């Protein structure tokens, strides 16, 4: 008879896994040399990579940085005895142009500052682990550094001293408080710095002013338009109902911007003149142009896409059909046609003499185009939400807007992150299409650079450089979206 009973008298200690399954060797074995077939594939792939790099790297490694023309490049490469080599002289000579286009050289601090401030303005929107102090510290620091690149004057020195004091003070509190728990200090009544989103809101008006210059009163008036819209909504919503009030709250500021803002700005400028030297749109170019168009269109297309997606799901027949027509029409048309409409046709339809900025026209078209795609991406997210979420929100007494804002949109947007970011990336790359209507984005500039007799015949170096510039932006966006997805994951943590 077998004895089936067993009682463990001694618990086994934890042991390390066998060495061949962990560490570098384990990883290699599992991922690269797992069986004959995989080993062959691995070796073949390595061979291919080595072969490709073996051809490309010597081409890239070419000491032509200081060459002044393609002929000089050829001499240098020929002297080194290589068959071919890159001609980096063109990048050396033209990179400022690739970045700024024909933006006046002495004013290039302005777009550079706008670019760095963009990141500061984005921090509170994109990340939640950076403290308010850090945010204000970075802002003061960037502004402080920027002052060193301006012509010195008595006013500038005062500004510099103020900024230096701010940097030192906030920096000191940052270091001094880094050990203790900020939440506790605030609970104990410590002073909080203002929300950095304030700067983000200001940046919306600051950016165009820095880029285009002109009187300060134009952006002030533009901001006033939003205040007007808000007031209209506040005053009319109780009287006319939410929907009517929203429509009027959109219409009123648009009228203000189109008809009255110009008058307001020039009147105020006559009283209190303050401004930056104006720069015209046709002087914009290079990466500056791509980023200006891309960032603005990205920032506007997301809210517009949300509105369109909600409109498409609406029970109101008119809202619904307008949204559907808009989305389907815009999606059905190539971006190029929209850009041609922006550059050529609008001029025919607008009253003669209207000065409707070409960059603004392009931004509007790019935004409209992206928002149609965005709407469909977000609609996908909305469709993925179980009906129970709407019902639970209804059952708790949340009205439509609150339910959308607090329950539906946060979840739908989270689901749609990959699609949203793909649309962003696509939009950013599509900004190169403006070269076709004669704007000098990096691609447009590369054509005109090659028209220069010195650089006639250069192809790879320029396109490689452009590709690198774009890759930095798009790759960051894609990494950010992965970070965001991880951060927002709330299941099974």
């Amino acid at each position: 008879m077998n004895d089936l009973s067993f009682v463990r008298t001694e618990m086994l200690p934890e042991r390390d896994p066998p060495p061949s399954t962990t560490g570098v060797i384990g990883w290699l074995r599992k991922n690269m040399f797992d069986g004959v077939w995989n080993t062959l594939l691995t070796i073949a792939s390595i061979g291919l990579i080595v072969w490709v790099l073996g051809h490309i790297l010597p081409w890239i490694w070419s000491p032509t940085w200081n060459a002044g023309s393609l002929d000089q490049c050829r001499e240098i490469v020929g002297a080194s005895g290589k068959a071919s080599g890159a001609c980096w002289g063109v990048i050396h000579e033209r990179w400022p142009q690739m970045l700024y286009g024909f933006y006046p050289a002495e004013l290039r601090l302005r777009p550079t500052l706008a670019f760095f401030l963009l990141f500061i303005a984005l921090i509170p929107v994109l990340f939640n682990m950076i403290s308010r102090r850090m945010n204000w510290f970075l802002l003061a620091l960037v502004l402080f550094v920027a002052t060193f690149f301006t012509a010195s004057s008595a006013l500038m020195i005062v500004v510099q001293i103020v900024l230096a004091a701010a940097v030192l003070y906030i920096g000191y509190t940052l270091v001094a408080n880094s050990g203790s728990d900020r939440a506790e200090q605030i609970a104990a009544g410590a002073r909080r710095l203002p929300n950095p989103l304030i700067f983000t809101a200001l940046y919306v008006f600051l950016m165009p002013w820095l880029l285009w210059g002109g009187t300060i009163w134009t952006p002030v008036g533009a901001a006033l338009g939003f205040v007007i819209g808000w007031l209209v909504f506040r005053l009319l919503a109780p009287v006319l109902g939410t929907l009517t009030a929203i429509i009027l709250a959109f219409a009123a500021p648009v009228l203000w911007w189109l008809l009255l803002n110009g008058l307001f700005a020039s009147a105020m400028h006559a009283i209190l003149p303050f401004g930056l030297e104006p720069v015209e749109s046709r002087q914009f170019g290079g990466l500056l142009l791509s980023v200006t168009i891309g960032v603005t269109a990205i920032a506007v297309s997301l809210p517009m896409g949300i509105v369109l997606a909600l409109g498409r799901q609406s029970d109101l027949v008119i809202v619904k059909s307008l949204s559907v027509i808009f989305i389907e029409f815009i999606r059905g048309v190539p971006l190029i046609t929209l850009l041609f409409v922006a550059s050529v046709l609008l001029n025919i339809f607008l009253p003669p003499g209207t000065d409707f900025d070409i960059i603004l026209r392009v931004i509007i078209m790019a935004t409209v185009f992206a928002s149609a795609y965005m709407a469909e991406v977000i609609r996908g997210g909305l469709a993925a939400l179980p009906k129970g979420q709407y019902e639970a929100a209804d059952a708790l007494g949340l009205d439509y807007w609150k339910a959308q804002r607090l329950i539906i949109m946060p979840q739908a947007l989270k689901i749609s992150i990959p699609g949203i970011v793909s649309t962003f990336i696509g939009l950013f790359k599509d900004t190169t299409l403006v070269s076709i209507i004669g704007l000098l984005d990096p691609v447009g500039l590369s054509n005109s650079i090659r028209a220069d007799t010195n650089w006639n015949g250069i192809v790879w170096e320029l396109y490689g450089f452009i590709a690198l510039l774009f890759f930095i932006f798009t790759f960051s966006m894609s990494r950010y979206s992965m970070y965001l997805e991880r951060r927002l994951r709330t299941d099974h943590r």
Partner: protein
Amino acid sequence: MSAMEIEREVNRSQMQVSDKVAIEIKDMNKWYGSFHVLRDVNLTVYEGERIVIAGPSGSGKSTLIRCINRLEEHQSGQIVVDGTELSSDLKNVDKVRSEVGMVFQHFNLFPHLTILENCTLAPIWVRKIPRKEAEETAMHFLEKVKIPEQANKYPGQLSGGQQQRVAIARSLCMKPRIMLFDEPTSALDPEMIKEVLDTMIELAEEGMTMLVVTHEMGFAQQVANRVIFMDAGQIVEQNEPTEFFNNPQSERTKLFLSQIL
């Protein structure tokens, strides 16, 4: 008995039915397209009543209680909840919804918010209660459903039974006068059914007006003061539980009881 007996003694001292009307449904009809789901439903619910609604699948139980907080619209007849008539007037609908809590079969917690945020969201945004006070209330009810320690977790990290208790707490945070339950235990394992039923019994013991769609006949026998049997969109029979189970009148009811008991 379908799933389980309720072991503990139910304390009936508070469970008194007043003669004030909580819900009045008169000649109510509802269609889905041309499909007549609810036919001439008449029902008066008094404050403090615990009503269990039973019936075969597709008989319209869910539809009926979803009409009471207008998750579904009725097409004819009248529904008056706590003195407010449900009509297309959105103000009335919002008023009724903030007085009536609902617990769903699939919990429907908000997965992107913590348990505490789930419980404070509606009090803060609908009732305009200060955050701090709302959080205190929420913790009070979470303690009541015995999961205060989970307050900062996300719904996805909780078991089904815990999630359903959070859903009950979330409704209670709005301090509703009436609670609707649509098969609150149907998606749960037997062990978890018990913890949810316990919570519901406690609620009944405190005198809450409750309408419960359930297949838990043990709960009906011990807690309900009235059982309603529905079939084909109509109320076929209603009675107090002992009579209902021991002495059913209609053939449909007898058949139904013989299948589930």
